[in-house]
Structure formats: structure tokens, C-alpha cells
């Protein structure tokens, strides 16, 4: 938009000079009333995006087209007299409207001289002034009115740009708000993830000949994996590996509920099956979101090396014997916890021997996908355990986690990765002294 229009619009936006309230009642009031009436009219008709301004602009546009077309009509030699009269009348109307518009723009311009000598000012003036000098026969000058179209087109482009600019700003503001909200959620999830890891036990209870190491790598979206080491009466140790269905905050809450209940009930039950059954009953009553949790729970008697366990729908742990043979613990297929009350969980037992490694894991490992959408799979895990399982528990944990991370590479980690390795190496009599 050119200079005068911008300033008249700016004034219209100033307090007290809105188009609607200036026009009618103000004239009778103040000494500057005519001035303000002109300003109000200018704001109403020349300001870019009002209904009246749009109508006035269309009127000007139509008159330009009609008057330019009439130049062509007038050049027809045998034009009837009534047509000639009509064209003259039309020309008078056009000149009147253009004159009015020019005066209005001039009155509204803060710098009159600048408006008069501006390109648009000169074009506007030329579109009607020759009429007053040379009468109606000013065809070549009237062709100049085409230049006036430039103003209208320019105005339209400007309006469009202003609208696009406003929308872009609004969008940017909304994006900012959204990003701030997301950043807050992200940071809260970060805290929750940190808490999820922090509440898990850092060290395995110390027992001669036994070593335990664990690692949990929470997924970006926060899963519901957990593990636990529980000191039980008689020096026994409870080991838990569990995975809550679903992800995010609901899964994390259910994980906390499941872990707390299991830990508390473990002290009251001498067999893992009874402990899982009791925990299941409790979880079924504290489960508004219908989540469930797979739990492998075992009780290690360090003195005898007997490991008693029950499996509530969890991936069977791997047992690596000293000779490198790897087997999955039998007795899988118990129901997940929290799904249905009144379910029993059969007890199983296995005798640990010196050199054995027990590997407890969640499906975050076997179902870690790479960029080619290929799963890490149980076969790779079994092979890692077979080949690299002979050493310390912590070393095997690190080795497996590293292998899974390398396998998944840049693919996003969609599930928690959780792992416990328990090693049993009977100490030589010499080492005992």
C-alpha cells in the first residue's frame, strides 16, 4: 500500500477514531468535527480490509474498466446519439467519483505535498484533472486510468501479504506454545525415567560365590520394565524380572504398584508361586486401566544352589551351564498378572552348579528392532550367552546391552531393555581362607 493509505489506516486504529463512531454524532460536538469526519470517512473507505473499503475499491475498479472501455466505444463512428449521451454522463460520474476519492486521499494524507508528487498521487490526479481543463474529449488521458489499476492490484497484494503474515505469526505463536508444552512434558518424562531407574536396586546382595549384575535402559517413551533383588528370611534372595504392558505414564504407575506389592508380599510367602498368586489378586483389584504385567520370580537359596521359580507370562530366562550349553527354563506359560483373578502359578526348581550363569531379560532385548525392521531375536541372545557367558556377571550384562544397542543402531528404542545376570562360581578352598 502506498504512503497515504498506510497513515490513514494507522490513524483509524488510534483510540477514538474508529470508523464506526466518528461519522454520525461527532459533527455537532467539537470544533475539529469536520476534520474528524473526513478522517473517519477516509478510514472507512480507504482503510484496507473493511467491508466499505472493499466496496469502494471495487467501485473504483469497475469505473476504471468502464471508462477505459468507453474509449473504445467512442471511437465507433456511427454511435447513436443516446449512446454518446450515456457515455458522457458516465464520464462525468467517473470524474466526480475519482475527484472525490482524490480529495479524500489528499485530506487524509499527513504529508499533502508528498502525496501530490508521489507516483500514485500523480496518476490519480491525471485520471480526472484533464476533464476540468479540456472537457470530455480527453481520450488519451483516460487511457492513463489503466495505471490506476496498479494501485488496486498493489493494494490487493498487500492485503494478501498482510493476511498471510498475520496467519504465519499466529501459527508461530501456537507452535511456540506447543513446543514449550512438549518441552515440559519431555523434561517431566526425563525425571520419571530417571526415577524409574533410580528406584531399582543398584547392587546384588553379597553372597559368597554369587554375583549379580543388572541393567535397565528405559525406552524414550518410557516402558514399564522393572527388576528387583529382595532379601528374604534365611539368607535367601528373591529375584524379579517384570514387564508391564503398554508404555508411558500409565505403565510406569502400574510398574510402581506391581513392584511395591510384589516386594511386600515376597516376605510373606515361602514359595514363588504363592507369592505371584497373591500379587495377582491384589493387582486385579488395583487395576483401573486393565494393564497387566509379566513377572518371573525366583528364590535363590545360596547355601544349596537351589533356585525355585514361578513364571507369570514372562519370557523364560536362559540358563548357561559351565560347558556353554544354554537352555530356557521350563515352566513358562503361566498367565500374566493383573489380567484375571483366581489364577494359580506352579512352582518349579532348578539346581545351580558351579560355573552356571542365569540370564533374566525382558522382550525389550529380543524385540529390539533395527532400521530394517528386523528383531534382535532369541537366537542372537542365546548365541551371545553361549559365547561370552563364561566370565563375570557384570561383563555379560555389558556385552549383551552393547550388542543390542549396536544391532538397533539408529532405530528408536521403543521398549525398555532390562537384564539381570546371576553367576555362581563355587570358591576354591584356598580362596575361602
Amino acid at each position: 500500500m502506498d504512503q497515504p493509505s498506510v497513515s490513514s489506516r494507522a490513524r483509524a486504529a488510534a483510540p477514538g477514531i474508529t470508523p464506526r463512531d466518528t461519522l454520525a454524532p461527532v459533527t455537532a460536538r467539537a470544533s475539529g468535527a469536520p476534520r474528524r469526519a473526513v478522517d473517519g470517512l477516509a478510514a472507512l473507505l480507504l482503510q484496507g480490509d473493511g467491508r466499505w473499503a472493499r466496496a469502494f475499491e471495487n467501485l473504483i475498479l469497475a469505473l476504471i474498466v468502464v471508462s477505459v472501455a468507453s474509449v473504445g466505444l467512442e471511437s465507433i463512428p456511427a454511435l447513436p446519439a443516446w449512446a454518446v449521451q450515456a457515455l458522457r454522463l458516465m464520464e462525468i460520474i467517473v470524474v466526480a467519483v475519482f475527484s472525490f476519492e482524490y480529495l479524500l486521499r489528499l485530506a487524509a494524507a499527513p504529508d499533502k505535498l508528498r502525496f501530490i508528487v508521489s507516483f500514485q498521487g500523480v496518476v490519480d490526479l491525471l485520471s480526472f484533472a484533464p476533464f476540468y481543463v479540456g472537457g470530455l474529449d480527453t481520450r488519451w488521458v483516460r487511457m492513463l486510468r489503466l495505471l490506476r489499476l496498479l494501485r488496486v492490484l498493489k493494494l490487493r497484494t498487500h492485503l494478501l501479504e498482510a493476511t498471510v503474515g498475520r496467519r504465519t505469526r499466529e501459527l508461530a505463536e501456537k507452535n511456540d506454545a506447543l513446543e514449550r508444552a512438549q518441552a515440559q512434558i519431555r523434561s517431566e518424562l526425563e525425571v520419571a525415567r530417571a526415577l524409574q531407574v533410580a528406584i531399582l536396586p543398584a547392587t546384588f546382595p553379597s553372597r559368597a560365590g554369587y554375583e549379580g549384575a543388572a541393567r535397565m535402559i528405559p525406552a524414550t517413551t518410557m516402558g514399564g520394565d522393572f527388576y528387583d533383588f529382595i532379601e528374604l528370611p534365611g539368607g535367601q534372595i528373591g529375584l524379579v524380572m517384570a514387564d508391564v504392558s503398554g508404555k508411558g505414564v500409565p505403565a510406569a504407575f502400574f510398574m510402581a504398584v506391581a513392584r511395591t506389592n510384589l516386594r511386600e508380599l515376597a516376605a510373606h510367602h515361602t514359595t514363588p508361586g504363592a507369592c505371584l498368586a497373591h500379587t495377582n489378586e491384589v493387582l486385579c483389584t488395583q487395576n483401573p486401566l486393565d494393564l497387566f504385567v509379566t513377572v518371573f520370580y525366583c528364590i535363590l537359596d545360596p547355601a544349596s544352589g537351589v533356585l525355585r521359580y514361578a513364571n507369570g507370562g514372562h519370557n523364560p530366562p536362559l540358563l548357561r551351564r559351565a560347558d556353554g550349553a544354554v537352555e530356557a527354563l521350563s515352566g513358562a506359560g503361566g498367565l500374566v498378572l493383573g489380567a484375571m483373578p483366581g489364577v494359580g502359578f506352579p512352582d518349579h526348581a532348578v539346581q545351580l552348579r558351579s560355573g552356571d550363569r542365569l540370564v533374566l531379560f525382558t522382550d525389550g532385548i529380543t524385540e529390539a528392532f533395527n532400521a530394517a525392521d528386523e528383531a534382535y531375536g532369541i537366537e542372537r541372545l542365546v548365541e551371545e550367552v553361549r559365547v561370552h557367558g563364561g566370565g563375570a556377571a557384570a561383563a555379560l550384562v555389558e556385552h549383551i546391552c552393547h550388542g543390542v544397542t549396536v544391532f538397533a543402531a539408529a532405530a528408536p528404542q521403543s521398549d525398555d531393555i532390562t537384564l539381570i545376570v546371576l553367576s555362581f562360581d563355587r570358591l576354591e578352598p584356598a580362596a575361602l581362607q
Partner: protein
Amino acid sequence: MNVGTETLAGHTVVIPAGRVDFNSASEFQAQLERAVGGARAPAAVIVDCAALEYVSSAGLRAFLLAARAAQRAGIAFVLCALQPAVREVFDLSGFSRIISVYPDRAAALTHVAQGPP
């Protein structure tokens, strides 16, 4: 994941294809619930899993909720034609102990025609 629906001898057959994981589980759950909600006993809902490639724990939850809804409504809810990997997930989680699983549609149809055992 895609889910198709067919009618077979008056029963509703739901046919999921692809992967039911965390991202598609709620959509799948809605489809199963529509099938169960639209069925009237003695009609049954049969889920034909021949084209189902993967089920995550969130997917299992969708099956569990649909099975519960069917039980409340007195409608038989059975699965058939599970691929080995999916079958393993159902077996490991104990779900095949609470939801009836059949080798194929014909076996499932025979079962639901006989009514609950």
C-alpha cells in the same frame, strides 16, 4: 495394521493383518469392541489371525479386553490360525489358557456351533 471383517454362518470374523503393537493397539481394540458389541448370542466373534505377524503386550491387552467384553455379553470369542511367532506370544503370556485358540476357521466354527464346552 489392517483389519477386515466378514460374516461366516452368522458369526463375525475379524481379520487383522500386519503388526498389532503399541501404535495400532487402540485402533485394533476399537475394532474388536465393535465386533463384540455388534454380535448377538448365539453368534460368536472369531478372530482369524492368519495374516497377523506380530503382537506386542499392548496388542495382547486389546485381545484381553475384547475377551472380557464378550464374556460379559455371553458371546463366544475365539481365535484361529495363529502364526507360530504369534502363537508363542499367546502361549508364553498364558493368554492361550484364557482365550480359546483353534488351528483354523473350520475348527473354530465347529466349536462355536457346539456352544461353550
